[in-house]
């Protein structure tokens, strides 16, 4: 017996008698051939009481510097937005936390209705008519959209803007290598997709094109122009897929209004914590014609035998447990609890709040860029006429890692090392700075002071060293 099992010696005897064996070991001996029985204890530490486990995990947590401990301007795909208390409270409710996937709808109406509401919220945000109930997270959502496009038109090429998150491009490449589609990358100009190169890259064998809104560099794309170009490039237009940042969709033109066919993305910024990268959720919305090829669970409305409104998992003939080898995706477990956090967060933000928050992010991002660009040895990586939202790229005239280290000594994480993420020559010296509503003007001013000083010190020490 451990503290999570309940078999007393009396239970054991009664149970073994009922089974008709002398011991539990006897069952294993009958079932598992001798050569593959372990026959020794696992080489793992002994179990610990609850309070000891807590202390161990707390000690590990203390060896991490979190956004609680420093002023954090890291973003690049996950952001330190505020998660309201009611999200935590609802996620911790047993009734949401501990059920399995709602295979028995009569006793799962809570979860199914949450999925239905979530789908509605995602459709509203993206201005696309259909959404599933979540996929794993952002980059794999991009790759799944690629697989759907491949099933849709059977073509052999993906055209990908370099403005996509590098993890999305990498994940798409991994998946596409499996199902045999070539990936072609289109370069950027001033942080957004080079429209001429984009147009030139698309041919009749292009299954799908991908861009990000905003781009990985925080720059706002002309999504409508990219979609229109893709659709007019050949007589056999590709599926247009956009990775979008959901929290900017209060003020940015939504993908559905820009000619996008499939909008996917990372849902973390909607009420999910950072968690060192997961779990969060991916969202997946599309035009109607893709409904029966979409991956993942979909909740649908119906009625019960007495005419009551109710919800079920629907269109399951797409899914692996029904269609097996012919399924439109292999996904089974996805991110229901994180999607719950997403729809609760969006309800909390509300119709007006998502616009207000978007404007605040836009204004603060603009302020931060204006404040930092022009510090000695610091300049905007892209043209200042290029609009940015929530994030922007700087070029430091000093070693980025060393500057970041100096800032860390002052309790500031100034942002992500761009070159480390993209490996692109033009990103050398690049720093990607993210602004959330938790970073006030005072925080931004402090960043300017510390970053400016760090760059100056680093340049000085480099000069001395040289």
């Amino acid at each position, binding site marked *: 017996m451990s503290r999570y099992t309940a078999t007393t010696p009396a239970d054991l005897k009664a149970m073994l008698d009922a089974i008709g064996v002398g011991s539990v070991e006897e069952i294993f001996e009958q079932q598992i051939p001798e050569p593959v029985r372990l026959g020794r204890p696992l080489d793992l530490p002994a179990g610990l009481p609850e309070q000891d486990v807590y202390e161990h995990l707390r000690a590990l947590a203390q060896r991490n510097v979190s956004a609680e401990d420093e002023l954090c301007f890291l973003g690049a795909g996950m952001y330190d937005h505020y998660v309201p208390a009611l999200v935590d409270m609802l996620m911790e409710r047993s009734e949401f936390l501990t*059920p399995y996937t709602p295979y028995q*709808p009569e006793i799962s109406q809570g979860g199914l209705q949450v999925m239905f509401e979530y789908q509605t919220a995602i459709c509203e945000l993206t201005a696309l008519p259909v959404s599933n109930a979540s996929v794993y997270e952002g980059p794999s959502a991009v790759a799944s959209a690629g697989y759907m496009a491949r099933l849709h038109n059977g073509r052999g090429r993906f055209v990908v803007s370099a403005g996509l998150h590098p993890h999305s491009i990498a994940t798409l490449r991994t998946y596409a290598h499996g199902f045999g589609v070539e990936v072609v990358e289109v370069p950027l100009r001033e942080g957004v997709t080079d429209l001429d190169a984009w147009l030139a890259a698309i041919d009749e064998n292009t299954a799908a094109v991908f861009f990000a809104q905003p781009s990985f560099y925080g720059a706002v794309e002309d999504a409508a122009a990219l979609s229109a170009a893709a659709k007019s490039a050949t007589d056999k237009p590709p599926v247009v897929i956009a990775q979008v940042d959901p929290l900017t969709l209060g003020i940015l033109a939504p993908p559905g209004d820009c000619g996008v066919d499939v909008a996917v993305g990372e849902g973390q910024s909607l009420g999910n914590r950072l968690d060192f990268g997961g779990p969060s959720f991916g969202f997946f919305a599309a035009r109607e014609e893709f409904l029966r090829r979409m991956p993942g669970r979909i909740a649908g409305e119906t009625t019960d035998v007495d005419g009551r409104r109710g919800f079920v998992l629907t269109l399951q003939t797409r899914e692996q447990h029904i269609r097996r080898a012919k399924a439109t995706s292999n996904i089974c477990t996805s991110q229901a609890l994180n999607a719950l956090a997403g729809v609760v967060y969006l309800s909390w933000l509300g119709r007006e709040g998502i616009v207000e*928050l978007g404007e605040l992010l836009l204004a603060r991002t603009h302020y931060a860029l204006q404040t930092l660009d022009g510090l000695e040895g610091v300049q905007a990586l892209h043209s200042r006429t290029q609009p940015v939202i929530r994030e922007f790229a700087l070029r430091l005239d000093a070693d980025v890692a060393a500057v970041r280290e100096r800032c860390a000594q002052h309790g500031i994480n100034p942002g992500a090392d761009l070159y480390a993420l993209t490996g692109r020559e033009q990103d050398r010296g690049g720093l990607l700075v993210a602004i959330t*509503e938790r970073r006030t003007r005072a925080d931004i001013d402090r960043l300017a002071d510390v970053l400016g000083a760090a760059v100056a010190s680093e340049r000085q020490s480099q000069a001395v060293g040289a």
Partner: protein
Amino acid sequence: MSTPAADHGGVSEPAADHRGVSTSTTGPPSGAELSETPLQREAAVTIFERGAAGRRAFQCPALDVPEVDPHTLLAAHLRRATPPALPEVSEPEIVRHYVRLSKRNFDLDSGFYPLGSCTMKHNPRLHERVAALPGHARLHPLQDPARAQGALELMWNLERALAEISGLPHVSLQPSAGSHGELAGVLLTRAYHEQRGETRHKVLTPDTSHGTNPATVTMAGFEVVALATNPDGGIDLQDLRAKVDSDVACLMLTNPNTLGLFDPNIVEIAEIVHGVGATLYYDGANLNAVMGLSRPGDMGFDIVHFNLHKSFTQPHGGGGPGSGPIAVSERIAPYLPVPVIVRDADGRFDLEHDRLHSIGRLRGFQGNYGCFVRAYAYICSLGAEGLKDASQTAVLNANYLLARLMNETHPPVAEYLPLAYGQLCLHEFVLSGGPMKRELGLKTLDLAKRLLDHGFHPPTVYFPLLVEEALMVEPTETETRETLDAFADAIAAILREAAEDPEIARNAPYTTPVRRLDEVAAAKHPVIRQAL
């Protein structure tokens, strides 16, 4: 949900007054005789149908930077014309809406959940507490490894533990769920063969396999070849020998399989598969049967995925999050996804991104770290002995429940719901509802729906596909003998009731927030969002 489940997760006999239907009636209860439960009277209203224009829960932080005309920052053609029609509700309205919704769910904390293949074991609340510590929960995934040493050490320790449990030395925690781990595994197999200059096209999966196996094979660009099951419930070796050749890249296997049976020929199977140069993949969905007792690596498997949300008790959240780490043998290790956690001679941890032969990334960042924290806490709590105890107790509970059912004489459950294969089982067993359907006119679905009125989550139904009217039962180590007894009693009571009047179960459930739902209509004319 509203069903009056006793503390142990069920009730031994249905109490008619709580169900609005008399179990002693001979005819089917008509709708008029049914009294609605409070939750049934409550109409389903979505959050979008609540609230009023102008209501809100969010108070935006003040604009503390100089005001700039927003249109100079973002041109009109890039802007959204009308805001998304998100709900307009106050904070109290949100709380009340979702708390009430939650009561329309059945959950593991409320009762027995013997869903086969899903390992619905207790989720200790300690795990939620430690995962919520800011040092874990607010740690940014791009934090410098030097300032995330606690997280990397935790991941390293979890990798080492999973390596020991599986008997395979190299682990990647990255995949997001079991199916994602499968995709990783098949892509690793592809990379392994490609590196040796071979192009193989086929992957074998038994007809008892989880649907994710063949779906993954297709997604990874291979052709699925199904293997037959022999009369004992294992792989048909003759069929395997007939289908295995140098064009086979991999055999994907669950062991114990979805019948709850350990394949006695596993060593021979591994020899046959390796004999043609193919890899052997272990679907770890059923690992809860053998932790500390038998290891996939020792059975000859090259690649295994774990479901942290099954064997290692990550709460399932109504359909995720999950986490599907993989462990592999030496020959597969060079192809593991990036980044890989490394430890230097001084004990410092880092993330290695450049690996020549890696298949690349399967997702963003490092995986579902929040799940790693919980799984690691579980392993720390149980240790070697506790993990073995978990598996032994899970197997004991499954066999006890099986015996209780098979020994039942009033009615003879074994005649209506015979065990599909074997005599004993490991962590789960599969009954066939075929005789029940023929003799009592009750389908497995009806039995499942009637169990809802008894306060139980039903077992997995209609899987595996090769068993007629399948009922797949996995009690897990969590349950007490009293709960198992109550469940066996409920099955017997339903069968007795059906012998009297099968209409009762055919129209069940009666006590749930809604009754049977029209799934055909839902699929025919999909309504998948609130009309606004």
